[in-house]
Every structure is written in C-alpha cells, then in structure tokens.
C-alpha cells in the first residue's frame, strides 16, 4: 500500500462521482449547488454503474481496457451529461440544502457524525485487509486481474473460473482500480469497496433528506452498516454488496418516482438496475422484481416510461449474455424445480431473513414499518415495498429449490442464501424511513 495507490484510487472514485453528477445534471436532477451536494452520493453510484455497463459492452466487442481507455470513457460519459444539460438549458444556481429547524439540525449532525466515525474506522481497516474470502480469490479478483493484465475478457480465464456466468462489472471496477493504483495491489483494493459504502450511504441519505425526518432517516442507515453480517463483510472484494446497494438505491429512486414522477429518478434507477444486472446473475432477477412492483402499483399512464426503462435495463444485459452464449457458458438459472424442497427452502429463507445474529432487528423493524404504513400510512408505498420484498424473498426460495446441489442450510459454503438476503436488508434500511415517515405524517405524501 502506498500513498500513490490511495491517491490514484481517490482520483478514480472522484471521477466516477463527477461523471454521475454530469449525467444527473443532463437529466435535470438538480438546479442548485446545494442539491448537487445532496445528490453527490447518488451521482457516484450512477457514474460507477454507467462506467461498468459501458465497459461490459465494450469488452464484449473487443475494445482493449487500459488507462487511456478508462480516461476517454469517463470523459465521454461526463461530456454526454454536460452536453445534454446544455441542450436542455440547465443552469446551476446558488443555494444550500435546507437542513431544517434547530433540533433537526442536531439530529442530522449526530447521524452524520456517527456515520463518519464508523466510516473512518472502516477506512483504517480497508487499508490493510488481506484477501481471504474464497469467492474473492477464486473468481472475482482473478477476473479483475485478468482484465488488468490482458486488457480484456481473457477467454482462458473467464471460461474456466467458478461461476463463469457472472457478469464482469465488478471485475471491471477492480481492473480500473488497479490501473488507478499503478499495480494489482489486492490489499489496497479493499479501499475501492470502502468508497462504494460511502457512496451508498451518501446516496440514500441525500435522496431521503427532506422527505423523512432525520430521526427516522439515520437510525436504519447506521444500523445497516453495523449489523453483524455486514460489519464483517462490507469490504469483501466481491460483487455482493455492490449489487445490494445498487438495487436498494434503485428501488428507493422508484419509490420516490411513484410519488413525484420526476423523469430523472426513473432514468437514474434504470442505470443502477442495469449496473446490478451486470454485477451478478441474480441482479437480473432483482431488477425484474423492482420494475415489476413499480408496474403493479403505478398508474397505467406511467407504464410507457416504465417500459422504456425496463427495455434499457434489458438491452444493457444483452452484451454479456451474448458473450456467455458464444462461449457455451451456462446461463446459471436454476436447472430444476423440486417441489419436495419448497418447505425446507421457505423455512431457510425465513430463518435467515429474521436472524438477529446476522441482521440485528432491521428486518423485523422493516416488517412492522411495512404493516404500519399499509394500515395508517402511504398504502401505495407499502404495496410497492412489500411487492419488491416478496419478489426478492421468492427469488431466494427459488434458488434453493431450483439448484438441487445446494444444501438446505445457512452455512455459506453450502448455500448462498445469506449473501442473497443482504439485498433485502439494504432495501429495509432505505425503505424504513419512508414507510415510518408516511405513518408519522398520517399518509400524507411528504
């Protein structure tokens, strides 16, 4: 680990944020510097997802991945946002985010301070972590190293590692990080995952700011960072946490879009879902759950725009699917459906979701918040969040039922259901503030 590696990594991640903010500006997501600051976390995730989706397609068609290519692609993406904003007459005006009255300022300050303390401690850990996780050295990081060393999708490696059907977005980000660091430093690579956590918390807090009181916003966001399962796995150099945060923030964007119909939210959600679908196989299922729930609870006049977003996500998935089909790699969908395993799979998914030892009380609080919102709060929001959660839950049951080789156990060496359930827990963390604030405000849309 060197200061040069850290500085390079910081520059790369600032570039992701600038690219995302440019794209959001082009979508007319903000008009003031204050709003820009509030959406910086979301901008980071959008920039990172757009970069990953773009390079997935470029690698499939054989464009070499290198330092110059990274810089050019970031500039092109940023220029697309800036030009679009100029053509649409966007301007940036002075203005700071409204923080609220004095007591609320104190609550916000306490939340930001606690999150900052935790993230600072996490950063210290990330600088010196060794690479231990099986999946990380078995295929995630080797794929990233292969893109870095061989400038593309090296077929000898990409077709022979475990889980060869996993899309390459996370390895692309790893390879870009190696270029930024000046070498394949798998220790400092953990800092890249720290940036993703910072971006995710910033995105969720920025989107919820002003729509939920700070005393409802910060407790779930802080809790999700420190629940036992994430506390020890947030920095694992794998695609799981990235997928979880992309899907949860996309689901939050769509929840807000259902309320205000702001087009930029739908477009940003589509970019994040496309990123999730190119991160892991189940990302396609997660994206389908989120979009299907939005279809069910939205008014028919909004369906054409939702359909457009769904098509965009589907198109973004195509390049990798074509590549895997061309190389005779199985799609990775469950090969069977043994009804005799349904009962055990249901119990397993339920036990894992409501495991205090893994997720603390977050899933239980989210369930109570969901029921309370359905009875006393925003019923459409409760319906949407409930449908997304049921879809994700059913997907987990399907995976255990459909892969006969998977043991019906929470042991992660025998069944990935614990990793899978992380998406529902991140969804809970971003949905609880909205659900409870709708109850607090007695169903009024904030």
């Amino acid at each position, binding site marked *: 680990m060197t200061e040069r590696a850290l500085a390079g990594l910081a520059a790369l991640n600032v570039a992701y944020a600038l690219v995302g903010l440019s794209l959001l500006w082009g979508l007319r997501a903000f008009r003031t510097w204050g709003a820009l600051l509030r959406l910086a976390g979301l901008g980071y995730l959008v920039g990172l997802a757009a970069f990953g989706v773009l390079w997935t397609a470029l690698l499939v068609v054989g464009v070499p991945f290198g330092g110059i290519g990274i810089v050019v692609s970031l500039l092109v993406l940023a220029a697309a946002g800036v030009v679009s904003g100029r053509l649409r007459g966007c301007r940036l005006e002075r203005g700071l985010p409204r923080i609220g009255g004095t007591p609320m300022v104190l609550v916000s300050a306490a939340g930001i301070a606690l999150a900052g303390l935790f993230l600072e401690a996490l950063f210290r850990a990330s600088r010196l972590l060794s690479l231990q996780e099986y999946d990380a050295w078995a295929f995630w*990081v080797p794929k990233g190293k292969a893109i870095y060393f061989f400038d593309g999708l090296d077929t000898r490696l990409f077709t022979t590692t475990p889980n060869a059907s996993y899309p390459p977005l996370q390895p692309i980000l790893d390879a870009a990080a190696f270029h930024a660091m000046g070498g394949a430093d798998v220790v400092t690579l953990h800092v890249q995952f720290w940036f993703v956590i910072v971006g995710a918390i910033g995105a969720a807090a920025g989107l919820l700011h002003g729509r939920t009181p700070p005393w409802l916003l910060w407790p779930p966001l802080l809790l999700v960072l420190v629940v036992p399962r994430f506390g020890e796995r947030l920095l694992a150099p794998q695609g799981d946490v990235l997928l979880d945060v992309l899907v949860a923030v996309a689901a939050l964007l769509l929840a807000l879009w259902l309320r205000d119909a702001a087009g930029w939210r739908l477009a940003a959600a589509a970019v994040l879902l496309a990123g999730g679908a190119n991160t892991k196989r189940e990302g396609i299922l997660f994206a389908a759950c989120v979009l299907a729930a939005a279809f069910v609870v939205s008014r028919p006049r909004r369906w054409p725009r939702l359909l457009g977003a769904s098509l965009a996500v589907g198109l973004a998935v195509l390049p990798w699917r074509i590549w895997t089909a061309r190389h005779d790699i199985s799609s990775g969908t469950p090969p069977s459906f043994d009804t005799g395993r349904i009962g055990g799979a249901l119990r397993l998914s339920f036990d894992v979701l409501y495991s205090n030892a893994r997720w603390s009380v977050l899933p239980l609080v989210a369930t109570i918040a969901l029921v309370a919102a359905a009875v006393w709060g925003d019923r459409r929001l409760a319906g949407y969040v409930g449908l997304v959660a049921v879809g994700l839950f059913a997907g987990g049951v399907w995976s255990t039922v459909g892969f006969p080789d998977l043991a019906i156990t929470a042991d992660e060496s025998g069944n990935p259901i614990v990793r899978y359930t992380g998406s529902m827990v991140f969804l809970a963390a971003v949905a609880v503030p909205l659900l409870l604030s709708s109850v607090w405000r007695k169903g009024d849309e904030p």
Partner: protein
Amino acid sequence: MLPDQAIAIEARGRIPAHGTFAVAVGPRQPGWSVLADPGSLENYLRYFLLPRRIDPGAPWILCFACDRAAFPGAQPVWEDSAEGLAILRRPP
C-alpha cells in the same frame, strides 16, 4: 490455503511474468495445515500468480507431494522436502 506460502513466493520470483505453470497435487501430507485444501490449490495459485497462466504442458510445475515420475526430466529448482513441496522445471 497453502501447506507453506514459501512455494507461492518462490514461484512468483522464479516464473517470468508472462510464463506458464502447472500445478500437480498428491496426497495430503502429515505436516500440512488443516486449512490447506488440496482441491483448491490450483485455483488459489491461478489467482496469486497472475499474469502467469496455467497450462498443463508448462515448463514450470508446482509440485505438492506430487508423483514426480509423471514429469520425466523435470528438475527441482526449489524444494521443501519436509512438506513435500517443490518447483520443478522441465528441460527446454
């Protein structure tokens, strides 16, 4: 993961960056750590030694208590006889 990490460090130093290597694994030896998993050795070394690639016909063989008779003419260039580990080099 490895019976002894010295073999990985030695391999990284001896095999050229764009060279190729093979991994040959024999029976678990009494001195190996319980964490050393013979079934995962090749996978781990593929990760650790990149950009060096795995090739069954490679000039370099990382031998973990392997049957050396399977590689006629290959000479050890590094050895840890207590653990049954060796780096073999086939004649050009």
